[in-house]
């Protein structure tokens, strides 16, 4: 995940209408879509709402001028974990259906139900829409801009300060993680190398984890001291200016929220 941070930040430094759009608008639109798709009940009406919202996502992705490969890469990084969990739904009965029809009997008394497959699809579709908008938000917004946008939306100052430091340290952590890994690799050390004594591997792994933490802390402490020297401090969040949204940004926000609300209303009307 640390490596993904560098990848996401690289995409966020590109230029497009979406990249330049105020972060508050992007956060509000993404969260509105997620809340809307989650609010739709676990029933086939979700396909209509999800279809409209996914088309909206595709349009926004096209505007962002980022390669679809980036989306697929991010999706591949996230979906295997959750995809597998969603897949397990096909073996489970849940409270959302009253009748279940077995379509396949497997060994050890495991069955696959038609209704469970339908539920897994509903869950998968909802998840895909939610995660797509999170991917869009993260590839079009720099982490520091996200923080600034969240602060302007009312994120408490203590969280904003700690998040700002955490995001800086994540990159520090990432670089030191790479260095520690390289140092271990050049010494041909691998924690799963069964030829090495068990106690030795545990000790080395313990040292590596501890060193990673301490080196990151000391590097972070130096970074923070130098930031303090330049006037940064516990109350630096106060310098965020209260920039009003432009007419174009208001228009984009209104249209996006209308599409989101419209998708849910159409889904219910067509059900």
């Amino acid at each position, binding site marked *: 995940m640390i490596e993904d941070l560098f990848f996401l930040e690289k995409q966020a430094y590109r230029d497009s209408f979406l990249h330049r759009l105020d972060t508050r608008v992007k956060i509000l639109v993404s969260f509105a879509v997620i809340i809307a798709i989650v609010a739709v009940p676990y029933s086939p009406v979700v396909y209509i709402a999800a279809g409209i919202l996914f088309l909206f996502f595709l349009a926004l992705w096209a505007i962002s001028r980022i390669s679809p490969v980036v989306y697929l890469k991010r999706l591949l990084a996230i979906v295997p974990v959750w995809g597998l969990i969603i897949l397990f739904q096909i073996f489970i009965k849940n409270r959302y259906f009253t009748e279940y029809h077995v379509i396949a009997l497997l060994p050890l008394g495991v069955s696959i139900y038609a209704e469970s497959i339908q539920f897994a699809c509903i869950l998968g579709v909802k998840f895909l829409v939610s995660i797509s908008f999170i991917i869009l938000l993260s590839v079009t917004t720099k982490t520091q801009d996200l923080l600034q946008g969240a602060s302007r939306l009312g994120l408490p100052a203590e969280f904003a300060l700690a998040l700002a430091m955490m995001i800086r340290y*994540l990159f520090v952590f990432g670089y030191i993680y790479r260095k520690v890994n390289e140092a271990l690799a050049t010494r041909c050390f691998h924690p799963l190398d069964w030829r090495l004594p068990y106690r030795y591997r545990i000790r080395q792994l313990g040292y590596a984890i501890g060193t990673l933490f301490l080196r990151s802390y000391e590097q972070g402490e130096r970074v923070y001291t130098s930031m303090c020297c330049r006037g940064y401090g516990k109350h630096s969040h106060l310098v965020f200016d209260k920039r009003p949204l432009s007419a174009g940004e208001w228009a984009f926000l209104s249209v996006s929220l209308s599409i989101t609300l419209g998708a849910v209303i159409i889904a219910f009307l067509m059900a």
Partner: protein
Amino acid sequence: MHIPDSFMPLTQGLVYWAIALVFIGLSLRWARKDMSEDRIPIVAVLAAGIFALQSFNLPVSMGTSGHLVGGALAAIVLGSPFAAVFILTLVLIVQGVIFGDGGITTMGANIINMGVIGGFVGFYSFKGLMRATGNMNIACFSAAWLACFIPALAAAVEMFLAGTFPLREGLIAMGVYHALIGIIEGFVTVVAIRLIMTARPDIMKLAVPAGQGVGA
């Protein structure tokens, strides 16, 4: 253990958010009172470190995902369960908003599981075990194991209430996975705390009375 969006109805997500906000408010009070200028780096590095620890995920068939939690580590190092709530909230915001790991509507539930339950179980079991055994390693290991295992069971119960997974199978799957992952969590917590105490004792504010910590 991260519950993603769509795995829980919106109404339930809002209830968990409301409960989580109470604890987030209390953790903010801790931050205003105890997070002095010189403690900001350790809070941020712990958040970054816990983020890194949690990034190694395994899917759990009848639950969500299996990974280390870090709630006990944060609470023990900073000497307050509210520190764990504060730090885990930061971690979950970054994971949810940037990486799509854990949802937005389910973030309240995730904060309750990992921050509140993980932090409080980790902190108070550490304190209790330090008093009972006087052994730092045993107290840290057990506290970290419990702070990994119990939130996993809480997540399984929430998923059952959400109607997405059956209770018994969910508890077994999440419990077994996290009972094993908890051993790694215990080991990492002991090593991290030992190293901090040896190399940089100044950054450690132990949650036990003087004489029962380092000297144990």
